[in-house]
């Protein structure tokens, strides 16, 4: 079945792949923001994950170690942010922006001698007969493992935030750190852990770019994916499943516009290129128009520093 020269099965399958990096980074950032911390350094953490993951995979020859390395790389950079904002009480917005610039530079330095090398290839998950199902097999069962990891991550974050005591504490810290502190929760410790989790997820997303999507290392490989991830968190109004929706929307329209061009659709490409951003603006307008609880669901303490002695 084809629509305007585009096979929807292939389109859905490829948008699922295209969305993985921004989805991983966004779900990590959602946890960070739920804990009341605004870390704008996602782009920097992603690219650190991309380079560290690439180096790890090339050196060890193992894609799995590459992904672990990528997560570790992102988390290491996040640690810098955690130290500056949680212990030295630096401004979160400025520190986050600086983190991006620092990450871009440092990754370029680390990656210098790895330009032009090829990482070990990551295979698709073998689903056996499931992969041969008509339509569904192509959409659901012919991907690499990270596609499933990203969806599981969204499910896990949703479940933890909604059903567990840990999620309750995390949200309490993000809504009112004074109250959480008064109840005896270690606000700073919880926030540092959330920041590390966010860094690891962003790093994993970055490693996906350099190990699977592009498979190579080049400077500036993330090309703004981290900023899109930040936008998706707002777009999702801090709800995990909407992160999945937002990531698929963004990834989907990017893929769709290239597919439409390849299929020869007579739509000016400029309109297609800007459409994801137009849709984001539109959704934000609808969301903030004020009906119901969905409107501006941001954690109340978002971006505010906390110090017990204050």
């Amino acid at each position, binding site marked *: 079945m084809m629509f305007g020269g585009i096979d929807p099965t292939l389109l859905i399958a490829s948008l699922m792949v295209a969305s993985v990096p921004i989805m991983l980074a966004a779900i990590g950032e959602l946890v960070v923001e739920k804990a009341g911390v605004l870390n704008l350094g996602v782009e920097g953490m992603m690219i650190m994950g991309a380079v560290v993951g690439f180096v790890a995979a090339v050196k060890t020859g193992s894609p799995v170690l590459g992904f672990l390395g990528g997560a570790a790389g992102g988390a290491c950079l996040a640690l810098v942010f955690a130290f500056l904002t949680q212990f030295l009480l630096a401004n979160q917005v400025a520190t986050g922006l600086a983190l991006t610039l620092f990450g871009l530079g440092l990754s370029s330095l680390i*990656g210098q001698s790895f330009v*032009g090398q090829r990482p070990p290839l990551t295979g698709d998950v073998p689903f056996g007969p499931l992969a041969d199902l008509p339509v569904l097999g192509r959409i659901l069962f012919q991907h690499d493992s990270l596609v499933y990891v990203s969806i599981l991550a969204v499910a896990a974050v949703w479940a933890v935030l909604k059903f567990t005591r840990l999620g309750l504490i995390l949200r309490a810290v993000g809504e009112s750190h004074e109250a959480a502190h008064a109840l005896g929760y270690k606000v700073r410790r919880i926030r540092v852990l959330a920041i590390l989790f966010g860094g690891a997820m962003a790093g994993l997303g970055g490693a996906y770019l350099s190990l699977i999507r592009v498979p190579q290392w080049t400077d*500036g*490989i993330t090309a703004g994916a981290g900023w899109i991830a930040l936008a998706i968190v707002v777009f999702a109004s801090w709800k995990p499943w909407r992160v999945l929706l937002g990531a698929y929307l963004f990834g989907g329209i990017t893929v769709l516009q*290239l597919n439409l*061009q390849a299929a020869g659709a007579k739509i000016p*490409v400029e309109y297609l290129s800007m459409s994801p951003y137009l849709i984001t603006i539109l959704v934000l307008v609808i969301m903030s128009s004020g009906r119901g609880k969905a409107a501006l669901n941001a954690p109340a303490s978002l971006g505010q520093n906390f110090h017990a002695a204050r």
Partner: protein
Amino acid sequence: MKRRHLLATAALGLGLVTSGAAMAQDKTKACWVYVGPIGDLGWSYQHHQGLLAVEAAYGDKVETAYQESVPEGADAERVLTQMALSGCDIIFTTSFGYMDATNAVAAKFPDVKFEHATGFKREHPNVSTYNARFYEGRAVMGTIAGRMTKSNKIGYIGSFPIPEVVQGINASFIHAKKVNPAVEIKVVWAYTWFDPAKEADAAKALIEQGVDVILAHTDSTAPLAEAQKTPGVIGFGQASDMIDYAPSPRVSSIIDNWAPYYVKQVGAVMDGTWAQTDTWAGIGDGEVEIGAITEAVPAEVKAEAEALAASIASGAYHPFTGPLKKQDGSDWLAEGAVADDGTLAGMNFFVEGIEGEIPK
């Protein structure tokens, strides 16, 4: 005490500055501005090879400097001004989008020579332009593509809809069609010179549309990496050899060899013979090279491609030779007529048979 220390430091600093200026006079300083990282293994990488060739040719007599990943806009003007102020004698700006910035800064520094790659504006006597006839190489790629495709669908990743890119699409298509009348070309505009993820997505979209040959006018190896994932899809190195992707999927490549030009122009600055020029050299001058054609290409196709390259190099054949019609069916070149450089430099139309429009 403290103040004296400060003064001493200042004096020392001043001494360094003046001795630096004195040194700059007996050394020629050549500077480059790159649009991407030199690690792109494509366009900027190849310009950087030219810089290295200049260093190798003149050794101690030359000093070089470069700046990578400079956006085409206000930043370019700032970088150029900074370079001119830092004592560069000749500045090469290596992307089409630097055109206005180059001319604007050149007006302010009449003693500095500016060389703009792929542009057409020479508003001041100290601005030269230089370009390579990439379309000659692309005609050869098109021949291989037309012979190799099994689905009769060729994909082309365009960067920006500018004449240089349009020439490449037309030249590839004309020569693919010549050897394979059933061939179709699908063009995707990426609107970037360098964005590996987007280039990979574009290649993927083309492959999903049934394309089995990918030609690219963007600067990274990402389209080749994407092509590698699907058996039977081939691609070409762009700007650099990209030999790392041989034997599969890279079957050949178009290589920009800027080194001879850079060595010549820097030499001209050194001996004071530099004059404004407009250079547009091709395969015959060694500025466009065809990378080794791999064994995936049958011997007779290889021979055909090499013969075409040789006839272009010798001047016996021009890739834009009539009869050719424009996309709308109107006549462009009569039988045996050859396109003039002016038309090529401003080419803003597809030839007959290409689907789709060039974005305005």
